[in-house]
């Protein structure tokens, strides 16, 4: 048995003349949790729905466990209900005309499970989300958070091997969202399911994924672990969209250093093998110190503006690199006008692919 559970290859999806997904390829391993991350309209949800069989691609292929679910060249398109995947919808899609129990037991009934087995499985799923005490409640009488849990229990009840999540937390308020994130991550580990998750929330993506796929205008920008995506953004888009970063223009000099347009020379790192045409480096706002540390790149500057956010303080620093944003812990506050030394290691000064 190979480790690959889902394989998406050269997927193209069109709506009329518009291309929503333009040649996307990736694999998801058994038990892995992969997140498709990107701004709205980047094709992430469309890709997910294509895996579920809810969108008809124009070309490419989708394999699950080695079986072709969609294959343009073989003219094969297995209907949704036969793919054996499960899905949690953004709107929850909890059926308002059924009880919580009936919602959760739906997939089991479709599979014609016997009464005893069905009850046991449905209750086990309800236990997973701590909703068993509400089993007999009509689904129309649930709060948003409860509906979320029912949707999750329903998606897990028939023991699917693949679960797809379409922005399942986006309709919850911030606090509940943070709680559910923790729970989801724990469930994934416990149940050993393979999942593909869609979100536009970069924090969420980084927090709960084994790997993140960053998408933009229908193509993949970068695939990697959350740490790779954050620490080694490949493109300007990824550096901007995930976390916050300062982008500094310049060019590679012959000795492998980066000469900025402002005349500063920086030591930088690259995730790829540089080809010499690169013109930008990214420095994460969180990785810049305002006191000189030995071994770092050093640039003098002055504090132009201080924005107090509570969990952190954001400074805007004027320097030879331009004005840079810097995030520091909310202690030892610096006043506007103070002279500082920008200090960041070459590790954190990432050369972006041109």
């Amino acid at each position: 048995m190979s480790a690959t559970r889902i394989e998406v290859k050269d997927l193209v999806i069109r709506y009329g003349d518009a291309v929503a997904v333009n040649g996307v390829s990736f694999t998801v391993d058994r038990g892995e949790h992969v997140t498709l991350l990107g701004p709205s309209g980047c094709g992430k949800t469309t890709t997910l729905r294509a895996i579920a069989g809810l969108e008809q691609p124009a070309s490419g292929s989708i394999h699950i466990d080695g079986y072709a679910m969609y294959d343009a060249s073989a003219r094969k398109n297995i209907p949704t209900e036969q793919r054996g995947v499960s899905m949690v919808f953004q709107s929850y899609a909890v059926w308002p005309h059924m009880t919580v129990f009936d919602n959760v037991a739906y997939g089991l009934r479709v599979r014609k499970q016997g009464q005893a087995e069905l009850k046991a499985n449905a209750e086990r799923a309800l236990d997973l989300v701590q909703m068993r005490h509400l089993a007999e409640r009509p689904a129309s009488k649930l709060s948003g958070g409860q509906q979320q849990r029912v949707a999750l229990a329903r998606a897990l009840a028939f023991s699917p091997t693949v679960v797809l999540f379409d922005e399942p937390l986006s309709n919850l308020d911030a606090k509940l969202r943070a709680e559910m994130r923790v729970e989801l991550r724990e469930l994934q580990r416990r149940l050993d399911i393979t999942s593909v998750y869609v979100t536009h929330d970069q924090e969420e993506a980084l927090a709960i994924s084994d790997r993140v796929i960053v998408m933009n205008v229908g193509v993949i920008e970068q695939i990697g672990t959350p740490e790779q995506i954050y620490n080694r953004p490949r493109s300007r888009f990824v550096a901007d969209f995930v976390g916050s970063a300062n982008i500094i223009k310049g060019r590679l000099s012959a000795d492998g250093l980066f000469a900025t347009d402002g005349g500063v020379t920086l030591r930088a790192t690259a995730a790829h093998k540089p080809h010499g045409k690169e013109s930008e480096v990214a420095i994460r706002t969180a990785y810049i110190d305002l006191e000189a540390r030995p071994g770092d790149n050093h640039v003098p500057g002055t504090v132009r503006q201080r924005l107090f956010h509570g969990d952190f303080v954001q400074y805007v620093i004027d320097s030879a690199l331009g004005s840079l944003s810097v995030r520091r812990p909310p202690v030892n506050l610096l006043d506007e006008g103070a002279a500082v030394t920008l200090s960041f290691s070459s590790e954190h000064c990432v050369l972006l692919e041109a």
Partner: protein
Amino acid sequence: MTSLTAEDLKTRRNWQAIITVIVLLVVGFLVILPLVFLVEESLNVGDPMAFPPEAYGLKNFIAIVDEDINVLWNTLIIAVMATVMAILIGFTLAWILTRTNVPGREKLERLMELPYYMTPLVGALAWAVIAGPKSGFANQLWRAGGGSGDLVDIYTHFGIAWIMALFEGTVAFVMISASMKSMDPALEESARVMGASKLRTMLTVTLPLVMPGVLGATLFVFAEMLGSFAAALVIGIPGRIYVITTAIWDSTLAYPPDYGRASAMGLSLFVVMFLMLTFYRRMIGRGTFTTISGKAFRPRPMDMGRLAWVFFTFCLLYVLLAVVLPIAALLFTSLQRFATVILSQAEFTLANYQTALSLGPVRTAMGNSLMLGFGVASFGVLVMVILVWIIYRSQLWGRGSIEYLVMFPQAVPRLVFGLALLWAWINIPIPIYGTLWLLALAYFTVMLPLGVRTLAGVVLQIDKSLEECARVCGAGWVYQMRTVTLPLLKPGILAAWLLIFMACVRELGASVFLMGPNAKVIAPSIVNAFATSGTELTAAMALIQTFTVIVALAILFRLTRGTTKELS
């Protein structure tokens, strides 16, 4: 994983395709075929009863202009008068009820629906009783009060237009108030903030934004007026004022019936109406003025002070003229031996109801209508649900044209459709002409737009992912329809059922042509009774029909209120 066997799934998969194909074939056959026959017959210049025609030509069309020019003239005058009145009524009501602080606004808005459920036929009969020359109640009172001659005469062009306007006014109201309600009040408020006066705001912002809605309503109402039949039949024929619909009817009564002429007139009417409705759809769909965002706003009502009570009276007056007065007049008439409004001469009796309910033909007609209503509504809704699902939910190629096909009967005047069906089924060698079966087919076809529109409103409200989720859980199409779609559609299905039931019980235009001696229905029977027996008996029959509709209506309101509560 509990897997489903491949064979299971294959059979389930095919069901969707099979049902889709059957439904489309049936609907296509029902909608298109009669019109093909209509076109064919309109070009028939040989023996009008021969099929297929012996000779083709345009003689029938030329004859309309040559011989029936005064009919066209009457039609135009009446339609224009009626449209102007209906739009005035509709605009005023819409403005009062959406933009002013008229007292009891919500209750009044509910009341405005009532005229819609009164049939124009009942209205025409009632106004004949109220404003007929000599014996009309108004004229009786006028003479009793010392006046001479007649105060009013309904048997005129204006009379016909007046009745049509009263009953179409509520349609104009609904359309215009929809465009008023969908206008974001911020558009007006920002004009005020920029320093414009109330009047200036009204002239430069409100009116231009509402204008497309008003024009659309005008076009729609005018098209309806051209094809309207009931008032022209009840009032026009005794008054010798023929419009195109009654002329069509009349030429089929001649001996031998001139189906060629009737078809040519019907087809011309259809083409005109079709063009107008297409233009209307374009205008509404174009959306250069996108005030209709699908979101209903409640604009801040203007404070009208004392004037509010004047507006209040206007609203009540409309309901009084369109509903209360007609029903009262009919009730009063039906309870007397000889209808009079002078109480000292009145002889009250229940005999008319006894006669109406015991008279064989009336009873069978009523029974037939109820039976058709039940049958067509029950079977029809089932087919319509599938149609709606195909049009708005499936991925089927060409589903847009299916919508067009289904909505098509709306552009065909009922009467013309009846005529087309008559000619089609005289010549199709399946002997259902003159039976209830043909009426059932006709009703189903003409009710398609009504039912599909009602159901579509509900289907579009159902979040698509509710259905998709069922598929992801492993359900096939039939299972998903049964466990998710249909239960969620239940309120819509009930509403559509009742609307279709009501419409069937009231149906006149198509029925007049398709009714056979052994398959009578109630609305044409009422018209017959008006022509042949006394107004008193007619009034009783009309009220029995109205009462049936009211019962259905009461249930409808009950149900819709129940479901809105449930959903909120």
